[in-house]
Each structure stands twice: as structure tokens, then as C-alpha cells.
């Protein structure tokens, strides 16, 4: 019989304690961001602990302080130097991107970079054995710092990568030449070109780190390194072949082809600049006589150019938009810390959305019950969850744990235990009402009831509820595992603590929240629908689907609107368009009759194999040559309705005012839910950069030609 509450003994014993060398006394560290101590074996421990931050990142203050410390170590030499982080969160997440925000002077940036390089070079040239001990993420500038040490060991769980390319940049603190010199240059280039992070074991295989071990062996590993007994990883035997410039040229050509598949050179120049850099200067001591120094100089110049370019600046903006949305969620986490934690999610409806939401929550570590009357639906959802685990490279044990947490619940018993219940049944008010009746009877008083509705106003759905104050919308996007945004839909009767707890839930499952008010189509579908409808009208006018899609892709959209409509399903597009036309008195164009007929005939798009395109093996059959949209007239026809609707949403306060910075939230939401050309910094930002007057004029011209649906929203005035 149990007499006391069980204790998490492992947590009590605190197995994660970091080995940081001797405890620093107060007079040891007159520094802000680093501590330096020396142990009995004369090994110096240089510990990175950035002041006022939960994670380490590099900025000028951090590097200047490091420089002072290195100068001291040059004169008063230890036997060896260990560099590591005191943060539980990891080694270092990279350079502080904020340093370059708003920076347009590339010469000034280059100058700052030269100084930073000089400091990292000083570390790499220190005449004592240096070792970086790395736990957690070691990214970008963090990895470049580690590469300046003689050796590196990883604590299991550490991750390594160069994410710069995702910000429209390439490594800028020596990564381009240190990584390509240390390991197989093709592997190094792949890391830098894809921005993918690799786990410790892979980093070890690549030769980025010399050993992988556990925290408990750090002291012995350090002792071995100091004694010169830690074997170094070696680049593969064939690496010198890349010193031959013809070989490099060949490899670089392959890389360019691969990069071009992923990104348009006009919009994303960084990968191509990096490939060029390596092709020209990557061969250490080759016939042209190039060396580290030349590549270093070129890296600095290229980085400074990229970071000050509009693409670089806009992608930095997107980085901060993400941080902003993330912060909304994590603030929710902090506020909700005193409320009951959300650990158990009950999802009703195992269709594509419900099943995938359930799988994502289980993948994120939560206990999930997935309720559906139809075992086959649940079984299919489980199979998709298994596929997700494989795609995320989970080990067998990890996958089993995810699937153990994802519990099929034919009887709906999970509703009684869940902390949040998510309804994802068909978009019929009466079906939803019946589900809510059942759930409300079972659910805990403290639990939250959420709907994944995309089209029914919460004001309508809540009428049937006994307690609408704990009812809200969580609108996920398809495919759930890839779309980072979740619209958090409020209504005037919503209890504030439920709203914060929902934000905290979104944080737990690593999604980005867009807090919106209950209005037709919320934000994302509302702005996307005019864009899709305009594409349909263009089809109606006889423009080729391929031409329409190419215009959108040229603008920077990840996929054209015709293909997107087929992906989403024409039936769903029509339903949303009709709903919006019905609920908004407005300027929404009518869906062409022939498209309705198509849907009636079962031609609903990708899922049926036939829609606006013919589909085979999951891809659209694009037959026609798209041609070139010379004067951008097509682009404006497609994009301007979207921009105009964004402004309507802003004016109507569709974005929840309590989120603050509504324009940024809107830009972020549209980017993270639709893939709206990230390098343009968001729809409103794009309009600003292009000039509000210019956009409004273009709208007026189109309104004169095409009709009222283009007439500029009154909200544009406030943006001018």
C-alpha cells in the first residue's frame, strides 16, 4: 500500500550536473561572460556563461572579453585549455543575429567581422592544447568557435550545424575555411548549404568532433587530451583530391544543381556565394597559391554583402518574427506555470487533421488519446505517426515511446483525464455540438475545450456549451508536422487563464501561435482565399495554370496558387470561399461555375487524382510552358488581393490586440502558415518596401480594370 507520494529520484540526484573545473571564487572572474580557473593539473577551464541570458550567443562584448582572457593565457600559459559552456541549454547557439539588424553598410560590417576573426584566430593560434567540450546545441558561430580549438569532444545529445543559410547567409566567423579543412569538404559544404543539424554520433563520424562521451567521463577525457592521448579525428584519405581545382569545380557544379532545386538564385544568393567561395579558394595551398587567409578575406566580404542585402535583412526580420511569436507562446508558458500543466491531450476525430495533430502532440512528448468511432481511421493515423517518427530519424526505442503515448481511444475514455481536448470532426455545426455535449459531460473542470474549425465562428459553436469560458479555437494547418503556425482563436467569453494555458500548450508542442479573434476564416484562410480565387478567375480568362503558378513562384511563393488549391482540395477551397462570401459582405469574387461542376464530378484535386491539374504519384502534371510574366501584371493580380485582405484584417483587428505588434504578428503568421516569400519579410513589410502609395495605385488601376474587389481597403491610409 502506498504511504507517500513518489519522488523523481533521478531528478533529485541531478545527474545533469556539468563538469566546469574548479569552482571560481569571486576574485577569479572580473569578467561578465566568461570565467577562467585553473585546476591542480594546471589545466585552465574557460567557461562561457553569457550574462543575463539563458543561452550562450556571440556578440562583440563576448568576443572582446574573450580576447582579453586569451591575451592573459598567452603570457601565463596553462598545460592545456578547456572551453565549455556553463548553460544547461547548450554550448552556443551562434552569433547574436541582432548585431546585424538594420545594417546596410557592408564595409562597416566587414570591419567588425575582421576584428571578430582576429579574436578567433588568436584562440586557434594559442600555443597550448585547446579542447572544446560541447553539450547541447553548438551552432553557427558557436561551432566556428569550437573549430578554432585543437580538439573537440561532444557530450551525447549535442547537436552541430551551420544554420546561417536559413537566414540567407553563410558562415562568417571562419566556418567556410575551418570546416572544409577539417573534414571531407563535400560534407562540410553540405552542412553549410543545407543548414541541417547533425547529432553527436554523426559529427564524430564526420570528424567534426574527436570523441563522443557522457558527462561523467569529461574529467578523464580532459586529462587524456592534456597528456596528448586523445586521438584526433582525421579527414578522409581522399580529401586532398579537392585541392585540385578541376575536382572542386566538378563538385561545385553538382552543389549548384542541388542548391538550385531548393532555392531560387535571384531570391536566395547565399548558397551560391558559398559555393563560389569554395570553388575559387577552397584548395588549401593549391596551384593558385590560395590559402586560409584568402578564403578568410573572401568569407568576410561575402558575408558582409549578404547580411546587408535586402534578402539578408528581410530574413533576419523573419528570424525575429519567429522569436516574437515564440515569445508569445513562452510567455504563456511562464504565466501558466502555476496552472495545471498540460500533459494529456484528447483529440476527437482521427481524420487527416485530428490524426496528425494527435501524432504531433505524442511526438512532442505528451500523452495523447485519439478518439474516433472508426478503428480504421485510428489505425491509419497510427501508421502516419510511425512514418513521422521515421522521417524524424527517431530510434526504435524512441518511436515505440511515441506510439505508446499515442493511445487509440474507441470509447472516448481519454476525455475524462485530458488537460486539453481538441475537436477535429467534420465542419458541421450539429456534429460538433453533439461532440461537445459528450465531452463536456466527461471533461475535468480545469480542462480546455478546443476546436480545430477553420470556418465556423466560435460564437456559433459556443451557444451549445454549458461553459464557453474554457472553449477556444486551435486552428492547425495541413500538414501539421510541417506547418509551424497555429491560430489561437479567442472570443469575448474566453477565460484569460485558458488562453494563456493554450499559448503554453502551443509552446510545448513547438508551434508558433497567431492569436486571432473569431472572425470569418480567421487570419490565414481569409487572406489566402482571395489569392486562390483570383487564380481561378485567371484560369477562367484562359491563362494557363502553369503560367499563373510560375508567376507566384517567381514572386517567391513556395508553390503556385493553382497547385495549392488542388493540394488543399477544391471542395475545401469552395467551402471556405462560400463561407467567407456568406459571412463577409463583400468583395469576394464568385467561384467560377465550371470549378463547382468539377467538384460535383469528384475532381477535387490531388486527393482524387484530378483537379485543376492531373495528379500522379503526388505531383501535378504541368504540361504547358509557363512563359514569362514580363510586366509582373500576373503577380500583382495574385498578390495584391492578398495584401489588400491583410490590411482589411489589420483594420478589423482580426489579430488579437493583446498580442501587441499586430503588424508583425500578421506578417509572421502569413509567412509561417502559407510560406509567403520569406525573403520579402512578410506581406505588410513587402508593401512598405515597395511603397504603400505604389501598392494603392496598383490596386486602383486593377479596380478600374477588374472591378471592385481590388478597391484599396481604407486601412491602407493608416499605413501611409
Amino acid at each position, binding site marked *: 500500500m*502506498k504511504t507517500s507520494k*513518489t519522488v523523481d529520484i533521478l531528478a533529485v540526484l541531478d545527474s545533469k550536473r556539468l563538469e566546469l573545473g574548479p569552482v571560481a571564487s569571486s576574485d577569479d572572474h572580473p569578467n561578465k561572460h566568461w570565467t577562467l580557473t585553473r585546476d591542480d593539473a594546471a589545466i585552465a577551464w574557460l567557461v562561457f556563461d553569457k550574462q543575463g541570458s539563458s543561452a550562450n550567443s556571440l556578440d562583440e562584448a563576448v568576443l572582446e572579453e574573450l580576447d582579453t582572457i586569451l591575451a592573459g593565457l598567452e603570457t601565463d600559459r596553462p598545460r592545456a585549455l578547456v572551453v565549455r559552456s556553463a548553460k544547461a541549454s547548450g554550448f552556443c547557439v551562434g552569433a547574436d543575429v541582432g548585431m546585424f539588424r538594420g545594417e546596410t553598410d557592408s564595409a562597416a560590417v566587414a570591419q567588425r567581422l575582421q576584428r571578430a576573426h582576429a579574436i578567433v584566430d588568436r584562440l586557434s593560434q594559442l600555443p597550448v592544447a585547446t579542447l572544446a567540450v560541447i553539450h547541447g546545441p553548438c551552432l553557427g558561430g558557436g561551432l566556428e568557435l569550437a573549430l578554432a580549438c585543437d580538439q573537440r569532444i561532444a557530450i551525447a545529445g549535442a547537436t552541430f550545424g551551420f544554420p546561417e543559410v536559413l537566414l540567407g547567409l553563410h558562415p562568417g566567423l571562419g566556418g567556410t575555411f575551418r570546416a572544409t579543412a577539417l573534414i571531407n569538404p563535400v560534407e562540410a559544404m553540405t552542412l553549410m548549404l543545407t543548414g541541417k543539424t547533425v547529432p553527436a554520433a554523426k559529427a564524430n563520424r564526420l570528424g567534426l568532433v574527436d570523441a563522443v562521451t557522457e558527462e561523467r567521463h569529461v574529467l578523464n577525457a580532459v586529462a587524456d587530451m592534456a597528456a596528448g592521448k586523445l586521438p584526433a579525428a582525421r579527414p578522409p584519405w581522399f580529401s586532398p583530391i579537392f585541392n585540385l581545382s578541376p575536382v572542386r569545380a566538378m563538385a561545385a557544379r553538382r552543389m549548384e544543381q542541388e542548391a538550385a532545386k531548393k532555392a531560387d538564385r535571384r531570391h536566395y544568393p547565399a548558397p551560391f556565394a558559398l559555393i563560389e567561395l569554395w570553388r575559387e579558394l577552397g584548395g588549401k595551398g593549391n596551384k593558385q597559391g590560395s590559402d586560409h587567409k584568402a578564403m578568410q578575406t573572401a568569407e568576410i566580404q561575402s558575408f558582409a554583402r549578404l547580411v546587408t542585402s535586402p534578402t539578408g535583412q528581410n530574413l533576419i526580420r523573419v528570424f525575429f518574427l519567429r522569436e516574437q511569436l515564440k515569445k508569445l507562446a513562452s510567455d504563456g508558458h511562464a504565466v501558466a506555470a502555476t496552472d495545471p500543466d498540460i500533459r494529456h491531450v484528447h483529440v476527437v476525430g482521427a481524420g487527416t487533421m485530428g490524426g496528425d495533430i494527435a501524432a504531433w502532440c505524442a511526438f512532442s512528448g505528451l500523452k495523447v488519446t485519439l478518439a474516433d468511432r472508426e478503428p480504421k481511421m*485510428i489505425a491509419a493515423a497510427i*501508421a502516419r505517426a510511425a512514418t513521422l517518427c521515421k522521417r524524424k530519424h527517431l530510434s526504435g526505442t524512441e518511436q515505440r515511446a511515441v506510439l*505508446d503515448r499515442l*493511445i487509440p481511444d474507441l*470509447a472516448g*475514455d481519454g476525455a475524462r483525464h485530458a488537460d486539453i481536448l481538441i475537436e477535429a470532426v467534420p465542419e458541421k455545426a450539429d456534429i460538433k455540438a453533439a461532440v461537445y455535449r459528450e465531452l463536456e459531460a466527461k471533461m475535468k473542470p480545469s480542462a480546455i475545450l478546443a476546436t480545430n474549425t477553420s470556418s465556423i465562428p466560435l460564437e456559433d459553436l459556443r451557444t451549445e456549451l454549458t461553459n464557453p469560458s474554457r472553449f477556444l479555437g486551435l486552428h492547425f494547418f495541413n500538414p501539421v508536422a510541417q506547418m509551424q503556425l497555429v491560430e489561437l482563436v479567442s472570443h469575448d467569453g474566453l477565460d484569460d487563464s485558458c488562453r494563456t494555458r493554450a499559448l503554453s500548450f502551443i509552446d510545448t508542442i513547438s508551434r508558433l501561435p497567431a492569436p486571432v479573434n473569431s472572425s470569418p476564416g480567421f487570419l490565414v484562410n481569409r487572406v489566402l482565399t482571395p489569392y486562390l480565387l483570383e487564380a481561378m478567375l485567371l484560369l477562367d480568362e484562359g491563362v494557363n495554370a502553369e503560367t499563373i503558378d510560375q508567376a507566384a513562384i517567381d514572386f517567391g511563393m513556395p508553390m503556385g496558387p493553382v497547385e495549392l488549391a488542388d493540394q488543399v482540395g477544391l471542395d475545401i477551397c469552395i467551402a471556405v470561399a462560400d463561407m467567407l462570401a456568406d459571412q463577409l459582405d463583400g468583395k469576394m469574387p464568385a467561384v467560377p461555375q465550371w470549378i463547382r461542376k468539377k467538384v460535383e464530378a469528384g475532381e477535387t484535386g490531388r486527393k482524387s487524382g484530378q483537379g485543376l491539374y492531373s495528379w500522379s504519384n503526388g505531383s501535378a502534371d504541368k504540361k504547358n510552358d509557363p512563359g514569362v510574366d514580363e510586366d509582373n501584371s500576373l503577380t500583382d493580380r495574385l498578390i495584391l488581393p492578398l495584401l489588400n485582405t491583410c490590411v482589411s484584417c489589420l483594420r478589423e483587428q482580426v489579430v488579437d490586440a493583446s498580442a501587441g505588434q499586430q503588424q508583425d504578428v500578421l506578417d509572421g503568421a502569413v509567412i509561417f502558415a502559407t510560406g509567403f516569400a520569406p525573403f520579402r519579410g512578410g506581406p505588410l513589410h513587402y508593401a512598405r518596401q515597395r511603397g504603400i502609395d505604389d501598392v494603392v495605385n496598383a490596386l486602383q488601376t486593377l479596380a478600374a480594370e477588374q472591378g471592385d474587389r481590388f478597391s484599396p481597403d481604407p486601412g491602407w491610409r493608416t499605413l501611409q
Partner: protein
Amino acid sequence: MAGAPGPFTPVDLAVQCGRPLLLRQPFSADCFDQVILGCVNVLAEEMNPARIAALRLGMGAAMPAHTVQINCGSGMLAIDGGCQAIRGGEADLVLAGGSESLSHAPLYFNKQATAWFAALNGAKTLPQRIKVLSRVRPGFFAPVIGLLKGLTDPVVDLNMGQTAEVLAHLFDISRPAADEYAAQSHRRLAQAQENGWLKEELTPAFATSGECYDADNGVRPDTTAARLEGLKPVFEKPWGVVTAGNSSQVTDGASWVVLASETAVERHGLEPMARIVDSQWSALDPSIMGLGPVLSATELLKRGDYGLGDIDLWEINEAFAAQVLACLRAWQSDEFCRTVLGLDSAMGAIAAERLNIDGGAISLGHPVAASGNRIVLHLANSLKRLGLKRGIASQCVGGGQGGAMLLEAV
């Protein structure tokens, strides 16, 4: 489930079966005091499957769990152990089950091969190694099927089917009688499935492939004695009585029951299905292991001063039709009851409509360690459904044992 290797290990099955049960409870999974799981064919990667199941079921790191093994009685032994822990005051809530994945039973290397591997390992020099390598024989790699090994009694060197042949001979069970019993098992199970009498105790298993196993696929409702007549004996050809048709089916499965003290019932507002009154384990010569139920159930009757007729429902695990029929004959035999059971005369007959009323292992399958647990659960459900008072569940146990448990409706 029957047939080719299934997608589930014993622990997988225990988890699939346990999750919905735990969800139904008004208390959280870490409220249990211990977990006991019967499992015979434990996989090398799942030692102490009870503990692995408890952890995978999210019952918490602090959950004590152990595995029990008494062959076909393992799932009932788990319940018995849980009961004793509750009676002794050590526990208020116990999760007791049985799980078996016969389709995962391992293949072993035979003894010669094992010896050869050991010699190879011990060979230090190259000539020594070559010498050992040259001794390899193709027969080394003929696998030993773990399942067949497990179903053969190592003391009397008879497989389980042969022990049923011995009983058929000793109690004069004819082939037609055995076939008719088997056909009845299929008919009864089919009817029970049709009427949803098993719904309460069945839960689908979901594989990662996207397949959903929502019904036992062993039942053949159109089975008749006439159809079974054509099957050849499998264990003792060509004259034997025991065929694949009148034996239990080799299948995978799992079963759990929640055991609660009166305190736990009150604390959590539980609704008991039945009360466990008494239990008994008995043993006899392994070659007639099928009579185990007669010994153990008779002890329960004696202690409660009951006759066969006082027991409203019986579940006697259908290892073999001939074996179940032999048990019935034993109770009807004056001589057997006097000399073996120490009674004055024959116990009498158990009416057909009180025994295995919804079929059993012949039609449903016999996932060894799960069966004893399942028949106790089914007995409790049947008593409730029919509004009856008292029932005994019992099974014969390979190795020459029997176990029985007396339940009363509440």
C-alpha cells in the same frame, strides 16, 4: 490472433491491451501498488516483461512489477498473486495480466551448433581455428523451434497433444465426441461474438503498419463435427484422436484485470465485477496434465462444501477437446472420485449449458499465459450478464498441474 508472425511482442500486446483498461479507470495509472504479468515465452529483449509493460503503460518509474510463469496457468497465477498481496495488506490496487506472443517464440541453435560456436570462440591460433571451422556440419543450422520445445514435457518426453491422447485413451473419449465438442466451441463463440457478449473484454490492437486487429480470427462458425472428421491426427499418426481441429489454436494475445481491495473500491468509487473467493493449485503426473482442473476445482468445492451443481458457470480452458471431456468423465466416475479425490462417490455431471458457454481456446485460441487470465475475466462477465452467483475458472497446466479460481458475483 492466429497465423503468421504477428506484429506484436508480449509486451506490445500487454501495452495494447492495458492502455484502454487504464483509461477507463477513474484513478491515474500510478495509483497501482504493483503489476504482475504472466508470460511463458519471454523474449530475450524483454526480460521481466511485467516491468517493461508497466513503464510503457506510463505507470511511473516507481511501479514494482514482476513476471510469473506456470505455463498455461500464468495469467491466473498473476491474479492469484495480486489477491494474496491485497489480502496480506501489502497492496490495494494490483494490475494482473497474462501475455503471450507465440508467433514470436524464438528459434534456437541446437546443442552441437552451440558447442561448435564455443570451440570456435576458444580457438586462439589460426591452425586451431581452421581445425574447428572444418568441423562444421550442415545439421548445425537446423533450428530448434522454441515453441515445440516448450510444448513438450521434458520429464515424460510427451508433447501436450500426446498427453491428451493418453487421457482420451484412459477415459475412452472417441474421435467423434472430441470433434463434436470442438464444433460446439466454434458455434458458441460465433454466437457470443454475434451477440456482442465479448465486446466488453475485447480491444483492437493497432500495428504501426496501419493495420487494426479488431477480432480473433480463429473462429469458424461453419465448423461441424462432420467437417472436422476429415482432419488427420497431428500428434500420434495415424490412429490418434487429437487433431488440429479439436485442439486449442496457437495464437498471440494478452489480458489484464484490475484487482482492488475494499478500501480501493471505496476510495475510487469503483464498481466491482466479481469477488475472488478462493483459489487452488494442484499437481499430478505430467503425462496426464489435462486432469489438473479436476484436482484443483474439487479442492475449491470441498472447502466451500459445494457440489458440482452449486457452481452456476464453469470455464475449463479448452487445451484439447479430449482433455476437457476427460475431466468431465473423471467427475462422473465413482472409482476416480473415490480413489483419487477421496470422495464417497462420483461428483456427477456438469451440464453442457454451464460449461464454456461462449466457446474457448479451441475456437478463440490459446495464447498460453493470457488464457488463465482471460477465462477469469470472461467468467466474471458471464456471471454478470446472466445474473448468476457462482463460478469456477480452471485450466490444466503443462508439466502436470492445474489451477482453479472461485468467483462470486457482487
